[in-house]
Structure formats: structure tokens, C-alpha cells
């Protein structure tokens, strides 16, 4: 099937998300859409999938113009999509999820799940998926959930499969497996639209690359183009993402975690017997695939996890068992991984968000009375210091862009004396300019002599910032390695391979494949 987008424009109010985009997906081709966060890739695909009406422009399937009123129409035309956030119903089984919207019935509207079960089996056998049709989706690992999503599309005879940032939640090994699946799909004549901002994958899998920047197609590239070329095309200027930073001068190890175990509501050990130190003036990066205990680790330190055992000491004082307020008062600064959910109150003004954890003390309060003028003046000062772009400090934080929201969080957390700074996914969803700003601030805090703990699932960010790297796998510490450890070793460690073995394996591997010097190609951040 040949799929063509002609002059697609999508505006939201005054915001132009897609500006006259042309795109041609040839049959049996892997077409990559490369662009930064916020470039308009997802919007474009949502238009193609019938979730948004285009403001202007046309979609053509095999040279015939089509109009998609909803995802149903797009699916009927042979387009399938695997969303970045999986569209699966957690309390349904695999077969129910696959059947949904495409049910076969046996008289009187009765569900006939056996037919769907059979289809799942056929597809699983064909592509080597190991999926139990009767498992509850919420019990499955993310990698398997992604396969369920692919099965959903294939059961509906998708001729074009859109994969939106499919590798964000996968280990490097799972990513390799996914790339294999894509190759198989291609062999079977399915076209794939692969959306990513990760250059390595894009280069490895695509037949054609279209680069999108600020809602416009800025050109197409050949997979053989160099990573630097692709990165500059994507960002729109020459990029040199290697951060200027002085070598760390670690001081005394003032932050110590010993035998930390966190259990979730099912009794599962989500953090399992973790021990490490962080020294003053040092960045320890916690690397790992999403969902391997990083969130729970940071929450346990902050006092947000009710079932944590072991010891977490800052400056010799035990933090475990204290309230969040006490932990913050001990000098812990915290940037949560999801700023909109945990970091900011969207309906509150910037000024109020700037004092969210200090509203009840001088100089912002006297007794239980607030001091509005002091609060406003503080906010004015901080928005200029952290370059927050806003018309007014009274604007609701929810109306700001992601980069500016993150600056508000940073401004709040970094504007008091810290004894420990924790940032979780500090640059998730930000554009390149904001990423540079955030990274500089993190390093500045380190150079100020604060122990810094960065949690990131982006290897590039980890390598950029870390003085040492601790890798987590299933809540356990796989090992702590120096900041200049190769990407391949880290990739293996993220799959649970201990550092020594990983080092050997990567050594063998390296001679055959990609060199480790790729680390500053600008890939993973944007």
C-alpha cells in the first residue's frame, strides 16, 4: 500500500503544530520520522490515524484521496498504530484487548473470543512472539505489552504500521529484537513509519528518513548520512552537545544508602537491597530501563514510599521513616520525573509554584499568614534568574511550555541551600535549548559541592552528566561503573548482566559492530 500525505497543516488556536507537511510512504518500506520532542511528529501521526482532523491538506492511499473521521476509518484503510503510551486496557486479557473494536460474534452479539485467540496464535507463531492470549495485560512486562499492540494492528491487516517512539521503554536488547520484528514485517510487505529522535536506531532500520523541525519538513536524508548531519538537521543548527564541564572534585561521601529495600502493595521488592554512596561535588547517575525501581528509589529517599527498609543517611542523619517535609528540610532538593503530576500544581500561579515546598516559613509566611508581596517579588527574581518565559508571575503554570515548567521546578528546588540534589528524568520531553540549560544547572550545583543523584533512562544523558553510573535492573544494583563506561557495556548491564561479564561481552561485540565513540552524536537527548 502506498500512503501519501500532501500539505498537511494542523493548527491548535494560534499554534501551528504541522505546517504543510508532505510525506510519501512506499510499500514495504521503513520510513523514519526524525525530529526533536515537540517538532510535531506525533501530531502528524495522529492526523494520519484519524485522531485529529487536519486543518488543511490531504491524505492519499494508493493515490486515492481519503478522509479519516476516526481511527476506525484509518484502520479500515490498513493503517495501524502503536502509541507511545500503550493503548491497552490493563484489566482486560490479551485476547480481549486484541478483540476490542474488531470483535467476532456468534449470534445475538455474543463474543467469540476463540477466533481472536486463533488469530493471535497465528501471528505469534509467524513472528516468534511469546504471548499468552489469556494473560491479564497489567501483569505483562512492557516489552510484551508492545507486542500485544503490534498484534492488535496485524490482526486488523495493517499494511502501514506506525510506531511512535517505540523504543523509549525498551532495553537495548529489546530494542534490537524490535528492530528484527520490523525487518520481518518489511519482508512480509508491511510498511513501517518509525518515529524517533534516537539517531542510532533510525540509522539502523530506515530506508528513508524525513526530518521534521518546528512543524515543517526540513528535508529528507539517507540512512548513510552521518549522525552529526542528522542531528544538525533535526535541531536546526550545528550541535555540539558535549557539555563543557570540569572534572569532578569529589569530597566527603555525605549521602549513604545501605540495604535499601522497597516493597510495593503486592509485596514485590521493587527496590532490592540497594547500597551506594554519593560524595559532595559528584554526580551519580542511576541508569536503567524505565520501571526497574528508579522511581521507587527516589521516592523512598524523599519519604514517599510507605514500605521501605534499610538506611538512607544524609550528613549522618537517618532520612528513612521521616516525613517528606522533614526530608526536604534536611536539605534535599527534588525534581520529580513527571513534573505535571508531582512537580507542579498546574492551576496555581508561577509565584505559588515557586514556593510550593516553602510556603509556610519565612520569608513567605509569618505565623499562618502568607505574605503575598514577598512571594511575588521572589517569583519575579527567580523567573529572570532561570529565564522562565512568561507574561506574568500570576500566570497559571499549566499554561507554560514543558521547558519553562521544568525551569520553574528547578528554580524552586535550586534556590535554597541544598545538601543533596535529586533529579529524575530532568530533561524528559524538553527541546535541545532547554536540555542544555538544565544540564548546566545540574553541573553548577555539583560544582557548588552538592552530592547530585540523576535518574535517567536516556543513556546519552547519563553519559553526559555522570561522574559515576549505577545501573539498576529489577530493583537491584547491577554495578557501579565509571562515568566513561562504554555504551555497550551499559546496555548489557541494563539487561541485568554484571559489569565484568558485560565488559567482556561488549569487548567481543565492539570489534564487530558500532564503535563506542558515538557517544557525542547528539542522539538520545533531543
Amino acid at each position, binding site marked *: 500500500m502506498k500512503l501519501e500525505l500532501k500539505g498537511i497543516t494542523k493548527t491548535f488556536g494560534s499554534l501551528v503544530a504541522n505546517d504543510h507537511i508532505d510525506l510519501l510512504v512506499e510499500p514495504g518500506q521503513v520510513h523514519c520520522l526524525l525530529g526533536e*520532542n515537540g517538532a510535531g511528529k506525533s501530531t502528524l501521526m*495522529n492526523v494520519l490515524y484519524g485522531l485529529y482532523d487536519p486543518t488543511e491538506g490531504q491524505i492519499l492511499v494508493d493515490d486515492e484521496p481519503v478522509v479519516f473521521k476516526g481511527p476506525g476509518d484509518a484502520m479500515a484503510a490498513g493503517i495501524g498504530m502503536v502509541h507511545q503510551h500503550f493503548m491497552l486496557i490493563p484489566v482486560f486479557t490479551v485476547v480481549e484487548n486484541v478483540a476490542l473494536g474488531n470483535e467476532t460474534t456468534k449470534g445475538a452479539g455474543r463474543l467469540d473470543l476463540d477466533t481472536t485467540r486463533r488469530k493471535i496464535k497465528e501471528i505469534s507463531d509467524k513472528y516468534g512472539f511469546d504471548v499468552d492470549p489469556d494473560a491479564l495485560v497489567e501483569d505483562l512486562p512492557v516489552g510484551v505489552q508492545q507486542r500485544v499492540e503490534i498484534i492488535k494492528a496485524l490482526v486488523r491487516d495493517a499494511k502501514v504500521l506506525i510506531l511512535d517512539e517505540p523504543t523509549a521503554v525498551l532495553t537495548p536488547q529489546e530494542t534490537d529484537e524490535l528492530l528484527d520484528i520490523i525487518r520481518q514485517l518489511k519482508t512480509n510487505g508491511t510498511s513501517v513509519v518509525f518515529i524517533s529522535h534516537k539517531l542510532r536506531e533510525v540509522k539502523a532500520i530506515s530506508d528513508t528518513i524525513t526530518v521534521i523541525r518546528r512543524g515543517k519538513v526540513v528535508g529528507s536524508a539517507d540512512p548513510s548520512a552521518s549522525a552529526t548531519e542528522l542531528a544538525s538537521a533535526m535541531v536546526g543548527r550545528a550541535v555540539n552537545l558535549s557539555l563543557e564541564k570540569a572534572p569532578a572534585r569529589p569530597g566527603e561521601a555525605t549521602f549513604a544508602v545501605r540495604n535499601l529495600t522497597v516493597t510495593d502493595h503486592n509485596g514485590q521488592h521493587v527496590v532490592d537491597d540497594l547500597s551506594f554512596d554519593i560524595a559532595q561535588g559528584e554526580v551519580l547517575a542511576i541508569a536503567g530501563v524505565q520501571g526497574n525501581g528508579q522511581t521507587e528509589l527516589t521516592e523512598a529517599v524523599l519519604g514517599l514510599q510507605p514500605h521501605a527498609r534499610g538506611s538512607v543517611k544524609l550528613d549522618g542523619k537517618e532520612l528513612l521513616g521521616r516525613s517528606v517535609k522533614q526530608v526536604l528540610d534536611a536539605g534535599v532538593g527534588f525534581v520529580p520525573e513527571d513534573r505535571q*503530576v*508531582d512537580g*507542579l500544581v*498546574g492551576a496555581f*500561579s508561577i509565584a505559588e509554584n515557586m514556593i510550593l515546598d516553602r510556603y509556610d516559613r519565612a520569608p513567605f509566611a509569618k505565623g499562618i499568614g502568607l505574605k*503575598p508581596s514577598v512571594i511575588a517579588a521572589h517569583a519575579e527574581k527567580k523567573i529572570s534568574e532561570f529565564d522562565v518565559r512568561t507574561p506574568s508571575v500570576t500566570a497559571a503554570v499549566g499554561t507554560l511550555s514543558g521547558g519553562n515548567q521544568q525551569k520553574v521546578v528547578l528554580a524552586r528546588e535550586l534556590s535554597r541551600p541544598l545538601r543533596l540534589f535529586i533529579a529524575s528524568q530532568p530533561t524528559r520531553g524538553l527541546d535541545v535549548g532547554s536540555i542544555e540549560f538544565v544540564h548546566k544547572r545540574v553541573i553548577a550545583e555539583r560544582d557548588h559541592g552538592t552530592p547530585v543523584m540523576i535518574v535517567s533512562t536516556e543513556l546519552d544523558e547519563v553519559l553526559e552528566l555522570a561522574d559515576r553510573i549505577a545501573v539498576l535492573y529489577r530493583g537491584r544494583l547491577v554495578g557501579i561503573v565509571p562515568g566513561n563506561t562504554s555504551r555497550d557495556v551499559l546496555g548489557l548491564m541494563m539487561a541485568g548482566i554484571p559489569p565484568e561479564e558485560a565488559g567482556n561481552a561488549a569487548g567481543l561485540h565492539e570489534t564487530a559492530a558500532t564503535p563506542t565513540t558515538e557517544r557525542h552524536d547528539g542522539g538520545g537527548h533531543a
Partner: protein
Amino acid sequence: MPENLNTEPAAEQTAADTATDTALATADGRIPPSPVPVASQGGDLGHDGGGSLLRQIFTGNSLVAFLSVVLAIVLGGVLIAVTDEKVGAAATYFFARPSDTLSAIWTAASGAYVALFQGSIFNPNAQTFEGMIYPITETLTVATPLICAGLGVALAFRAGLFNIGAQGQIIIGATFAGWVGFTWHPPVGLHLALVIVGGLLGGAVWGGVVGLLKARTGAHEVIVTIMLNYIAQFLLLFLLTTPAFQRPGNTNPISPLLDQSALYPLVMGEQFRLHWGFLVAVAATVFVWWLLNRSTVGFEFRAVGANPSAARTAGINVSKGYILVMAIAGALAGLAGVAQVAGTEKVLSGGVAATFGFDAITVALLGRSSPWGTFWAGLLFGAFRAGGTAMQADTGTPIDIVLVVQSLIVLFIAAPPLVRAVFGLNPRKKKTKKAAVAAAEGAGAA
């Protein structure tokens, strides 16, 4: 969802559309939306939000609120007219003399509303000046419990809790206050103070339980408060059969009269029922305004209401917030109970709370959960209620019409696009709504 392209504020803030609020406040559905209808969860820190006043009036909530009231009153008038006997009689010969029908319709609807006005604001037909202004004092008297309980509902709203339980809190507040009022006999002055404290305490306990259950077990406050309303009602009915509460020598479920020293003094003398409880209600409004906008406690409440996860991460004790806000909300409703038992009724009976607790919900909704909004809404609904009683007596129009008009007002105010469509004020049509929603999401996405 659309990705955001620039660093400028992405959302157009002019669209007064609930959908926008929803999208904005939920971070693309990752936070459950606040159950609560508030104009804005942000505090009023004394800065102007910008935008011309004129534009705010014509696009904003004030116009919609006014038009909602008009629309509801018109619909109420239609209902009065179609059920009127004279209209029905005239309609049988409508085609012979349509003017009869039309004038009957006008007479029925306008008669009822004139009676409503004369019963609630000013009665020009009265013989004396006192008689003329009596209606407005009645309005203030009836508004007193509505304002107090409405503030309780509004305050809980701001902390993200849907407090349907004002009715039960009024009942228990009135029970405590009443018992203090007719059982203890301390000196004048102290007695009234103790009655008020009793009312506050009773309401606080009944409200605090809700907060406690919510904080400890996650029990949904809507369900708990509905159930507690019934339990409070049956508890009161039971107590009124016990010797401690029942009037001696009486088989009816009614308490002794409260001591004179336990009653609110009258504001304007014997001919009016207006009592000091109204001034207490004004003070309560000021207090709630201060609490929400100028105190750290209110900051916590609002943060918990707008985004409990972020509040927790910022070190705010969300459980404590739920318990405290429900206790204060209950205490405010308890104050309404005091106004009833120590002001208007002077006795504790099964019907002491009337339906004030339920009306308080509509009052708080109409007031958009702001303290002064609630105050004015309480006055409006107090006028409806006071006038409705007079209307029923004068024109025989049942007071139930007031419930209809009140609920229509709240429905219309909650759906501005509907009201604008009815009055043909929708220049931007559907597209803008969509765009505003999307833009708000865009701001969330990037």
C-alpha cells in the same frame, strides 16, 4: 496530542470553557480531574490577572451567571404559566381570543414573581415602614444558614472534596448546640458562646470523620457524606425520643425551648426575626476568604485540591489536609445549625436543618466555590426561599418552583456554552472550543 513548538505560553486563556479547565488541570488525564468546579484553584494573591475589565464582563463568568439566572427565571415562569388554571381555561378558546391566553400567561407568571419579589426584598403594599422592609430581613435570616453551610461546601470543594454532607453536619451541629442551649444554664454571654462552640464542634466531628475515612481508607467522600446525612437524621430522630432531648410531658419528637441566654440576640428588634447569626455568617465569609487566600493552611488546602501528588511531593501532609478541611467545613455547617437552633427556630426538632444542607451545595456551586461568591449566592437563594414562602401564601404557587429555578441556574452556569448558544453569543463557535482544549493539552504535552 499536539507537541508544543515554542517557549511562549501556549494556551489561549480567554476561552471560558470547562473543557479547557479539565484538560489543563489533569495533565492529559494522568491526574484525575479535581471533582470540584472552581473558577480557578489558584489563589488570589492580590495581583490582577490582566485583560480588560470590559472584556472579562462580556466573555467571562459574570455575564453567563446573569444570563443563567434570567434563563432559569424565564423557564420557571413558563412552568408557572402552563400549570395555571386560568391559563388553561383561556387556552380552550385560544383561537377565538388568543389575547386572553396571553394575558393569563402574563398574569400568572408575573403575579408569582411579583409576589416572590415582595416576599423577599421590599413590600410596597405594607402599611408601615417595618412591614415594607420586613421581606429583606427575612431574606437575610433565611440566607444565614445557607451562607454558613455553603461556605463549608465551598471550602471542601477547594481542597478537592465534594462535600455533600452539609445536611448531616448541620444536623449534628444543631444537636450539639441545642443540647447545650437547653441543658446547661451558664451565665448570659457565656451560654451563647458555649452554644456556638457546641455547634462548631458537632459539625467538625461529623465532617472530620469524612476526612479521616478519606485519608485513611480512601473511601470516596461523596458516598460517605450521603450516607452520613441519613445517619445524622436518624440519630437526631432517635435522640429526640430520649429523656435527655425530648421535651418533658410531650410525646412529639421535639426538644425543650432553648434558654433565652442561649439565643442569638435580634439585630433589629422584636418585629424582625433577623438575628446576630447573620453577622456571624458575614464574619465566617471574611474568615474563609482569609483562610483560603492569605494563610498557609489555605495554601495547603488548595494545593491538595488542585494536585494531591504534587502537594505530597512538596511535603504537604495530604491526609492531614483532608481531615482538617473537612473538620473546618463541618464546623461551618455546624454554624448553620447554630443559626437555626439558636436563631430562627429556638428549638431542636427533626426538621431543624430543613433542606439547607442540600441547598448549600447549589449555593457553593453558584458561588463558584469562592467565599464571596458563596455569600452572594446564599443571599440570592435566601431571597428565593423567603420570597417563595410569601409567594405560596399570596398566589398559591407552590414553593417547589424555587427548587426548579435554583437547580436550573446551577445547571446553566455550569455549561456556559449552552447559555451563550441560547442567547446567540457564540461568535467563535465549536472550533474555538476544540482549539482551546487542544492548546491546553499542548501546553501539557511539551
